[in-house]
């Protein structure tokens, strides 16, 4: 079984090697090859997941990677309920997105390169999820970061894309510093990085240290999972190809932080402070990102902010201690957000790269199937029963309230209302109303190779929540399953009537949709809208300009950094100190070379003399040693 697991993880790497090294020859077949290896991975994942559902755990060290003193870092994989769930989500969603990419990327430059990167990404992601220690997790963590960087900058001739890639890389790297500090603290206190060594003896940690470790790890998660204050890279990451946005920046990579927090549940359980910080940051990010999504006109950026907001929800889930709710939302979100991105990609494909919603409208006649799946996904994210988003979001909010965080619950409900509003604003803007498509563009339905994954994901978005989220035999399946690994950390504070909560969240969702309908569909809607904008002008400006966060960061961090770099580091340190020093060293070497050049005669017997003289000296030295 453990070799099956290894095979499952390595299969995408094989695809990457084939496409990466032989891409020149696999040109047309590259997509099929990449998808096949992912298909193998997915097929192998099924028996593994069933094995995990039966309650088995695989924890196997394939070889010892670093042995230094008492520290022994193995390269090992672990399959338990938590990683089994991630395994299923990652392989399935990636498989669908690979198939979609065959159609979407067809004819693009560097087709094979794209699939090589995508396969490499899935490999790194599987390593992240399946690793049985923090360092293996960290390799995967950095691996997905690197893949994210190269895939955002996939159109590297485009300056904005290259810049966005760099921004993503640098921003997540700031978070990684925190993550590294967390790992170092773990090594310091436990002398091991293996989960099986750390978690059983987690209680030996002093509470202060537990808080430091959890906060450091969470700082890494804010970078990777685009939480406040390090979320700024994610909207820019939309410069990458749409399947990349769907796979990396919606479904899998950005949720790695949530997975990591859930994986470290025994540590977070020790630190109520750390957990509270996680939940508060999550709630704040969820709300904050939702406000930014309200007024945008760029299709993919709306989805990006919505992703940030939804990950905020997951952070609420894992932060309040109900790890299963966060993981459950991660799973449902992977389905409907991938679906949203892919259908946005289908729209973009049809519109020849246009993403501005002001140039769309009325597309439902031109692309009815895309419209249908988009509405399904939006209903799911808005939390309308019985679609999947409803169950997971409702569980998060319910647990947040029951575990004693009423303010977070309230923020969550308001955010749910905003989510429904902006998603349906997007749907109405794009697919309904009058056509504002520019002359000469003829939008068309996407090819079948793209539509099939869309429908598969749509079915997933509808049923996944109901399958795992409805109470059966007295317990909720996903709660039972995830709690095998990461049980709920804190005791219940309030007993709340669950049906009341359900009604509140349904009302929030329906209200959001209704407001969106009112402001975009009726004849008098534009008038109403302009009245609203005039009345709440400052608020609208704030939202529209994204609260000037990018500008603030620019002034606070980037500018001083540039100034210090230019005025001091470049002009003084580099020019005066380093360059001058290096020049002098070079000059000395040159002079020495001139002196030694005399010895270089070019006659081979001279060299023979020097060699034998050297041998003589070495022999003599030995002689002196033994005498």
């Amino acid at each position: 079984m453990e070799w099956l697991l290894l095979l499952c993880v390595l299969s995408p790497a094989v695809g990457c090697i084939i496409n990466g090294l032989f891409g020149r020859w696999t040109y047309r077949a590259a997509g099929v090859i990449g998808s096949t290896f992912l298909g193998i991975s997915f097929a192998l994942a099924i028996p593994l997941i069933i094995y995990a559902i039966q309650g088995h755990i695989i924890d196997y060290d394939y070889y010892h990677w670093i042995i230094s003193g008492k520290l022994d870092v193995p390269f090992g994989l672990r399959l338990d309920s938590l990683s089994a769930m991630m395994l299923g989500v990652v392989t399935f969603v990636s498989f669908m997105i690979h198939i979609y990419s065959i159609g979407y990327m067809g004819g693009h430059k560097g087709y094979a390169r794209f699939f090589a990167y995508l396969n490499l990404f899935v490999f790194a992601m599987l390593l992240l999820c399946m690793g049985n220690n923090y360092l293996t997790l960290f390799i995967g963590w950095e691996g997905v970061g690197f893949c994210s960087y190269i895939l955002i900058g996939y159109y590297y001739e485009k300056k904005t894309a290259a810049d966005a890639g760099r921004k993503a890389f640098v921003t997540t790297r700031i978070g990684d510093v925190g993550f590294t500090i967390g790992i170092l603290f773990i090594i310091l206190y436990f002398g091991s990085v293996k989960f099986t060594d750390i978690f059983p003896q987690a209680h030996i940690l002093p509470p202060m240290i537990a808080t430091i470790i959890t906060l450091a790890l969470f700082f890494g998660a804010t970078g990777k999972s685009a939480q406040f204050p390090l979320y700024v890279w994610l909207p820019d990451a939309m410069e990458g190809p749409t399947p990349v946005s769907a796979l990396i920046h919606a479904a899998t990579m950005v949720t790695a932080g949530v997975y990591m927090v859930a994986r470290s549940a025994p540590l977070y359980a020790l630190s109520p402070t750390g957990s509270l910080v996680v939940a508060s940051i999550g709630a704040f990010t969820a709300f904050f990102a939702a406000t930014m999504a309200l007024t945008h006109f760029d299709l993919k950026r709306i989805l990006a902010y919505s992703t940030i907001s939804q990950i905020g929800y997951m952070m609420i889930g894992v932060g309040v201690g109900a790890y299963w709710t966060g993981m459950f939302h991660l799973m449902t979100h992977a389905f409907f957000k991938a679906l949203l991105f892919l259908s946005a990609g289908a729209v973009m494909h049809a519109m020849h790269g246009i993403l501005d919603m002001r140039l769309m409208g009325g597309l439902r006649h031109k692309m009815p199937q895309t419209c249908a799946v988009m509405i399904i996904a939006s209903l799911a994210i808005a939390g309308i029963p019985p679609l999947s988003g409803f169950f997971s979001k409702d569980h998060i909010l319910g647990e947040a309230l029951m575990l004693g965080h009423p303010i977070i619950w309230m923020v969550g409900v308001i955010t749910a209302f905003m989510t429904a509003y902006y998603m349906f604003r997007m749907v109405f803007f794009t697919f309904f109303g009058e056509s504002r498509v520019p002359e000469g563009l003829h939008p068309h339905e996407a090819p079948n190779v793209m539509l099939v994954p869309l429908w598969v994901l749509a079915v997933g978005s509808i049923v996944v929540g109901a399958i795992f989220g409805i109470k059966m035999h007295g317990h909720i399946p996903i709660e039972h399953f995830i709690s095998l690994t990461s049980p709920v950390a804190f005791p219940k504070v309030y007993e709340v009537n669950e049906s009341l909560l359900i009604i509140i969240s349904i009302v929030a969702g329906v209200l959001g949709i209704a407001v969106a309908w009112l402001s975009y569909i009726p004849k008098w809607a534009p008038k109403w809208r302009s009245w609203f904008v005039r009345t709440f002008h400052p608020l609208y400006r704030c939202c529209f300009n994204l609260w000037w966060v990018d500008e603030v960061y620019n002034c606070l961090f980037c500018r001083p950094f540039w100034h210090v770099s230019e005025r001091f580091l470049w002009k003084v340190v580099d020019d005066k100190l380093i360059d001058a020093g290096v020049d002098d060293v070079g000059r000395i070497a040159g002079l020495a070379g001139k002196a030694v050049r005399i010895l270089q005669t070019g006659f081979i017997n001279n060299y023979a003399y020097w060699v034998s003289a050297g041998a003589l000296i070495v022999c003599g030295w030995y002689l002196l040693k033994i005498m």
Partner: protein
Amino acid sequence: MQYYVPFLMVAFILFAVGAIGVLVRRNFFVVLMSLEIMINSAGLVFVILSYFSGTISGQVFFIFVAAVAASETAVGLAIAVLMYRVRHTVDVTEFSIMKR
């Protein structure tokens, strides 16, 4: 005096004589032959120590040494032929293209 010392002495004398040949002769072919003698004396040390320590590995190594020496001679002769063709001499003191 130990029983293996005369054998080693012979090997070392051969080595030194070969080294003299490499260092003092001008004819490239004689240099090559002297090199053969040096390599052979090194192989001889392997065989001697194989005998006196009672393991056969030394003899195996002589086979490897012989193979490498054969390749070295072949390449050396090819270079000699090439130099003769280009410079019309096989005098090692005339070969100084490494400088220019």
